[in-house]
């Protein structure tokens, strides 16, 4: 049976603009958040999400409902994220030893902030700081682990769906997620002790 979203995409391919509106309403927030979790920049996330939908519209004429629409859409999204990361790497390399300013205006090395030891529980209570820390910890993951965990946690996709999007085996997805979650657990250990489920 044809995926309902793939059906909407086929209708859009045949000129029904309202179908594209439905898809846009359903997926725009998801796409923005996948990109945001991946690159950690709010403004850029929305800009890239627009680029994702622009590519969807341009590819509409060639669209064939071979897989679930979401799989196809997330494939475009992850490819764009990976391109963005490559572009950023080419432009600049951020040194983990580069000093960054804390909330109190003191200098701190980025690597210390990412890898811990974590600040006291009083500071952890600062929600914004905690979120920034989590985001930086996610950003410190190798690209393949990062994209897999973002798709799994935020989109709740199965290993099989992730494997289709990333073009790898289910076993490989399992390994990436195991390493990602273990890495995050170690780097965020103080947050985990302080936080609740």
């Amino acid at each position, binding site marked *: 049976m044809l995926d309902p979203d793939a059906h909407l995409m086929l209708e859009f391919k045949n000129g029904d603009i309202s179908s594209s509106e439905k898809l*846009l309403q359903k997926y*725009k*927030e998801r796409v*923005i*958040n996948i990109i*945001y*979790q991946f690159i950690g920049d*709010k403004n850029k*996330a*929305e800009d890239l*999400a*627009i*680029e994702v*939908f*622009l590519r969807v*519209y*341009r590819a509409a004429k060639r669209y064939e409902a071979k897989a679930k629409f979401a799989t196809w859409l997330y494939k475009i999204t992850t490819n764009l994220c990976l391109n963005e990361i490559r572009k950023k790497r080419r432009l600049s390399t951020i040194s983990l030893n580069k000093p960054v300013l804390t909330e109190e205006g003191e200098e701190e090395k980025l690597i210390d902030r990412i890898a811990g030891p974590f600040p006291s529980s009083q500071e952890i209570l600062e929600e914004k700081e905690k*979120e920034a820390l*989590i*985001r930086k910890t*996610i950003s410190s993951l190798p690209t393949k682990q990062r994209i897999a*965990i973002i798709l*799994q*946690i*935020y989109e709740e996709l*199965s*290993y099989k769906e992730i494997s289709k999007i990333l073009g790898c085996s289910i076993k490989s997805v*399992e390994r990436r*997620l*195991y390493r990602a*979650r*273990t890495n*995050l*657990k170690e780097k*965020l*250990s103080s*947050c*985990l002790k302080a*936080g609740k*489920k």
Partner: protein
Amino acid sequence: MKCRKVKQKLVAYLDGELQERQKLLIEEHLSKCAQCKREADLLNKTFYLLKNQEHLKPSEDFEANLWKRVHSAEKRELLPQNIFGRLAHLSLPAAVAAALIIGVIVGNFMEKRVPSQNANLEEECLTSIGLDSFENLPPGSLPEIYFNLATTKEVENG
């Protein structure tokens, strides 16, 4: 099942990705091993810590910005330099095809032209070696002797 093996499978277990038999084995181990149980709890907490991260809402002008980009992309695609730009990758095969076509046309033309030239040459040759050409035979040459003999015979017979 050993702790090391269980730990490797914990994430897949928590994500509900294990087959029933493996799931039961892990559950059995977790009920007995406090260390692995603690590891499972921490991994589970990590999931929710990430899951509860700030969620972005699309801006109000998301659609407007998208359509603006769609329209400007369409306009760009219609610009002549972009049409040619898109065809740029075809330049080499097109040049080869054009060269082949020109080659075939010129070849055909030459083929028709060469026989006519040959015909002219043939005519020129025949004209140049016509009987008139033997009017002034080199003195003392074999043709002159033969010609004089023939003429004498004609006169005698005459």
